[in-house]
Each structure stands twice: as C-alpha cells, then as structure tokens.
C-alpha cells in the first residue's frame, strides 16, 4: 500500500487512473499474474490427478503407450522450450535495462522457439493420426499389441492413455498458442518503444506465464514419454 495521495502530479502515461502510483500498479499486476497461475495449477491439476489414477490401474497400457511416443522429438521439444525460457528471461532483463533492439530480438526468438515446439508437436500428432492412435471410432492399437506380445494390452485401457495424452498435450499446446500470441503483441509494442525501464510489467508478466507453461511441460515430458523405457523382458 502506498501513502501517497491519489492526485499524482507528474503522470506516467501508463498509470491507470485508479492506482495511486506506478509501484502500486506494478504490484497489483504481478500479484494478479501469480494468482492466475495458481488457478492454472489447479486446472492442470485435475488432469494430472486423472492421469495418476489411471496410470496406477493400467500400468501396462500406459507403458506401452509411452513407448509408442517418439522420445527424440520429445527431448528436442524439451530443449526447445528451455531455450525459449532462457530467451524470455533475457528479454525481461533487456527490458529492465531499456535495450529496445535486444528486447525485440529476444522476443522474436521466443516466438520462433514456441512455433518450433508447436511444429514438432504437430508432427508427433500427425504420426499418431496415421497410426490410428487418436481416440475415437478409428482407434486401433493392433500394432502395439503385436509389438508387445509379452504384456496384455486392453485396447480400451490403451485408449485412456491416448485420451489423456491428447487432452494434456492439447491443453498445453493451447497455452503455448496463447503465449505466442501474447508475445507477438508485445513484440509489436516493444518495437514501438512502449516499454521503458520504469514500465515493462507486461513483459515480466508474459515471462512469468511462459515459464509456467514451460514447467507444465517439464512435468508432462517424463509423465508421458518416460514411463517405462527399460527393454521388456
């Protein structure tokens, strides 16, 4: 809270009327973002909970499903996302120091990484589509059943794995798309020199959001791709 009276003489153009000063505005925005991320945690939490229960019940099918995912593409994607987090972090730093060009470049890089991630994810999904692993009427896992004769695969349980796989990565990808959109807007404003060392809250907040989306993936990757990679006996 601030003690300064509402009537502020020198006015930062970015200060909205109902805040007493820039500090209050900045704190409010960042608290807002943190609270929002808390709701996001609960949002994904519901799905993680479903995942854990079914993985415990249908372990064989989950392991087989996990093996059918492309571990290399998954790893590359993890690396891509970590890089994008780095560029965002650097971008925030550039904004704090008021380096406009650097900021624009770093934001663009982030967008490129984000798109790369989505592209790779798209390729993975497309492969699944060709393999008939998309839940629905054409769902078919005979290939997996043939591949792992040692374990018994119940197609309906296998379908749950893929349902959760698509729901979780889909929701994550949706968050990525929104993030890329936000960064596109921010890049435009950054290019227009809207952000100064005194006022760059949007960059910080978008950065927070992006890190959060990253962290979700850091959980998704081992949960979905690395369930059981040991060679089957």
């Amino acid at each position: 809270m601030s003690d300064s009276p509402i009537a502020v003489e020198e006015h930062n153009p970015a200060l909205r009327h109902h805040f007493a000063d820039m500090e209050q505005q900045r704190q409010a925005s960042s608290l807002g973002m943190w609270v929002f991320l808390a709701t996001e945690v609960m949002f994904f939490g519901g799905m993680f909970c479903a995942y854990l229960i079914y993985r415990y019940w249908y372990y064989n099918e989950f392991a087989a499903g996990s093996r059918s995912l492309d571990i290399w593409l998954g790893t590359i994607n993890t690396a891509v996302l970590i890089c994008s987090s780095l560029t965002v972090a650097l971008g925030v730093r550039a904004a704090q120091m008021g380096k406009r060009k650097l900021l624009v470049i770093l934001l663009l890089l982030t967008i490129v990484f984000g798109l790369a991630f989505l592209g790779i994810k798209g390729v993975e999904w497309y492969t699944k589509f060709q393999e008939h692993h998309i839940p629905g009427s054409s769902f078919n896992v005979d290939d997996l059943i043939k591949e792992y004769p040692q374990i018994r695969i119940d197609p309906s349980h296998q379908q749950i794995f893929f349902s959760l796989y698509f729901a979780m990565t889909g929701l994550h990808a949706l968050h990525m798309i929104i993030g890329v959109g936000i960064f596109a807007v921010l890049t435009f404003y950054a290019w227009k020199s809207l952000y100064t060392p005194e006022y760059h809250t949007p960059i910080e907040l978008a950065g927070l959001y992006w890190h959060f989306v990253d962290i979700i993936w850091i959980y998704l990757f081992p949960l979905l791709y690395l369930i059981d990679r040991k060679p089957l006996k």
Partner: protein
Amino acid sequence: MFDTFPLWPARASTTAGSVDALYIFLVALAAFMSVSIFIMIVVFATRFRRRKGVQAEQIEGSTPLELTWTVIPLGIFMVIFVWGAVIYFRERTPPRGATEVYVVAKQWMWKLQHEEGQREINELHVPVGRDVKMIMTSQDVIHSFYVPAFRMKQDVLPGRYTTAWFRATRPGTYHLFCAEYCGTMHSGMIGQVVVMEPAQYEAWLGGGAAMGSLAANGESIFQQLGCSTCHRFDTQGRGPNLAGLFGKPVQLEDGRTVVADENYIRESILSPAAKIVSGFKPIMPVFQGLVSEEQLSALVAYIKSLNQPPAGAAATPSLLPGTKPQQPKVQ
C-alpha cells in the same frame, strides 16, 4: 396419529431401528439448538430493542466464550460422527453366510436372481430373519437400490459390483426405489420388496424351482464358454484351479496380493490382463462383450460355490482348510 401422518417409514429391518434412534437424537438436538438460538434472539431483540437515550454497550468479544462454543459443538459433533459411523460400519459389512441375491439394474428395471435360481423383475421376495446380501451391477448408467423401510441404499454402478445387505424383520410389502437419477423413467424404476414368513417363503421358492440353482446355471455356462478347458480341478490346467479361490488372497505376477472377491472374479473374466496370477501366462482370452451381466452373475456364483463341498454331481473340488461351508440361517 402416525398412521395418517407418519414421520418415518415402516421399520422392517435390523438397521432401521438404530438409524431412527440416531435420527430422533439428531432431531432433538437440532430442535434444542435452534430453539435456544431463536429464544436468545427473541429475548435480546425485545430486551435490547432501541429506546431513546439508551446506548448500546460496546463489547469486544471474549476468548473464553469463543473457546466454549468451539469446543462444545465439536464434542457434540464427534458423538454424532461416532454414532453414525458405527451404524454405517454395520451397514457396510455383510455378515458371513448371508444368502446372496444378484441384482442387475438397467434403464429402467431391476432384474434379480436368487441363489436358488429364482428370477424376478422389479420384485424381491425375502424371508423374515435371514441375512440377505445383494451383489449388484448395472448394464448402463448408475442406479441406486433403495428400500426406505430397510433404511438401506447403495448405488449400482456399471462395470463393477457393489454390495449391500439387510435382514428383514417384519413381513409386508415395501417400496423399492431407484434413487440415483438415471434418465427418462428414473421415477418409474420402482418395485417392491415382499418380506414373507419363512414357511411362506419356502412355498414361494418351491413354486419356481424348476430352473436349478444359480451356481448350477453358472456351471453350464462355464462349460459352454470353454472355461473348463483351461481351468481344471487338478494341477494340469493352463489356468489356475478355481476351487477354493473365493475370499482367498491371490499372489499376482507383479508382486501385489489381492483378495479374490466378487469384483476380482468379475475383472478376471472381463479383462484378465489387468491382474495376472503369479506363475501363469497371460493367455486367458478377454470375455468382455461375450458374456451378459446375468451370465457373469451365474459364473461368479458358480466360482464361489466351488468353496463348498460338492453338491450333487458337480465337479470334485477339494474343500480347502479354513473355508467355512455356507449355510443359510433360517430363524
């Protein structure tokens, strides 16, 4: 007076009385609490109503008082909790040796099968004084088996068995309701439970005994579906010997141990891959979609019956030590 304006349904089972006792206690408690609060409000409202020149007295609060009205209600709550839990515990643990009735619910009817082989629809006949255990499943959505006179209710789920039990105490005809919303004719999914004197009940049983017992029915299904090719009553079969299986712990391939209850047997038949018995290969075919719920009930009843000494010309399973032969108690 209670005949024209009753406050509780007929009491026709052993639990009904204990549920009503707790209920009456709670009504009294609730009435006492709310009346005392109302009286306090009314007294304060008249005694301290606004008058010229009289100021309210500012009182900050009082921690001892706050503690009192935190701890005392909590204590009362714990009494209610324990009391309710004791009743529930009894409601949820069927006594050994209860007669079994298999229930299959579907939109919008109840299909019931007695151990002795009688089948009924939307009607259940039971004798007074015998423990009856219901083993229930649904063919479609969730239903709920509710007999108000027994104070008994249990949801009936698709894809698994749920159980409930009662012992009727008073002959008569009572409502059977479906209590979980299940679609268009949810309110039409009703029937009746007919409680009879034991002698009457025997007569009723005799009336429909032509079909043979549920277990015998299960045995013929066991042959038809080819279960017997793998499950033999010696050690030669490709599958485990099922005699004496029911109620025993089973060692699984992945190291876990599970108790072979109705749901385990059900799962072993419908999706055998979920739990592989230690020492066996996962070769048992999936029977999901090949057996109806009724056939499944019969199979389960049959496998359970293998715990008993041979009845008639059935297979010759060895009675394992520690298994109690099942004997319906008639009083």
